[in-house]
């Protein structure tokens, strides 16, 4: 770690600031999964929106909230959800993707 010293002011430009370290890894993993979940919720919402728009609804937002996926949409959602998760987990664990 570079010790910052006013006699070398440009060292302040890109200080080697310590941030996360090994003990943060667990929390980092948890945050990653929380983020994955949020991404998922949005992905799901967009798929539902396309579906609802295709049905030419008027109050789209209320319709999306109330929309209960039929078995076909649910299985497409399930497939996409599992794929999203697998992408993140496989990267995290180093499992090769096919």
């Amino acid at each position, binding site marked *: 770690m570079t010790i910052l010293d006013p006699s070398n002011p440009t060292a302040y430009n890109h200080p080697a600031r310590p941030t996360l370290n090994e003990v943060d890894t667990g929390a980092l*993993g948890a945050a990653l999964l929380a983020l994955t979940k949020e991404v998922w919720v949005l992905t799901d919402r967009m798929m539902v929106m396309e579906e609802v728009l295709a049905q030419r609804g008027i109050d789209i937002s209320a319709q999306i909230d109330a929309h209960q996926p039929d078995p076909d949409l649910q299985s497409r959602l399930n497939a996409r959800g599992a794929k999203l998760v697998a992408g993140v987990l496989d990267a995290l664990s180093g499992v090769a993707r096919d």
Partner: protein
Amino acid sequence: MTSKLDAVLHQRGRAGVDFVVHLARGASGLKAAAAADLAAAVPDPAALPDDMDRRHAHMAQALGGSRANRVSQLVGEWHAQMHGLLAREAYEEIREAVDPVLAQAQADGPCTLEPATGPMPSYWQGVHFHRTAGGWDEHPMQGYIHGEIIHKRLVEALYPGGIFKQRREIAARAPRDHYARILDMGASTGHFTHALQEVYPDAQIVGVDWSLRALEHAQRVANTHGWAWQLYQRGAEATGFDDASFDLVGSYILLHEIPADIIRATFAEAFRVLKPGGDMIMSDVTRYADMDKLGQWKADAGALWGGEPFWRESASLDLAQVAREAGFVDVTASGIYPHVVQGRKPA
């Protein structure tokens, strides 16, 4: 079959709950990699330490180098912490619509519920079983959240086949075709109670559980069907009911949530409240005696990280032996999951 109690979730809550299912399914590649590392790390399960705590230490060492196992732990930990909270979020999103329906279902109908007057036992109070945030009774609608959202949406998706099917099969194993009075110990939100009532439609059913929130939901379920269950917030080990007042006493997946001495007391209590000639049927999780050392370690790790403080001592018990000690005769115990013990009080 649809019911007015079915949780009709909004998009955000529904997708959040579904994510827990996607997390489990999307982890299949990871799980395969973790399993391969595990098999390589433990070529001979029989050589694992006998003592379970030492076995955990040994396994931690043996798997320390497996990144797939570390990530697997992360997924398990996230599931444990989040599944209850996501289900709770899904409920919060629909509460305005659902609360009046729930209040009415609880108030209107033949089912009665008597709350406890004394304190809850220390083995139950404040324990977050299943790692459910706040435990069984913290959230005012925990019964609904657990019974309708976690069970019907999550458990059903992860273990398809219908949560009632297995319960009905077990209920139907009791030897007689008719029972006048049945006691369901650890009735919770009424899933086994429901199965018992379907299999024995004429029976008067009484249920006990320590969780008032769960019983409140059982009351809604019973009222919705027009069933006159009598529910009490009481322990299975000391129900306060009269001697010889039931024809059948049953429980479904209750025992692993209680300490061994309370399990013994529960069998003794079942014996006491049964009429002579009455039947007992209790189902619980897989016995450690039916697994190899590696299987036991997996179950024990699941319990350790899954909010199950009494699983080890409970799953280590020989339930047939416990039933005989309580006085039951013609005792049988069979099945891997659920493990079912049956017996009869001598006539």
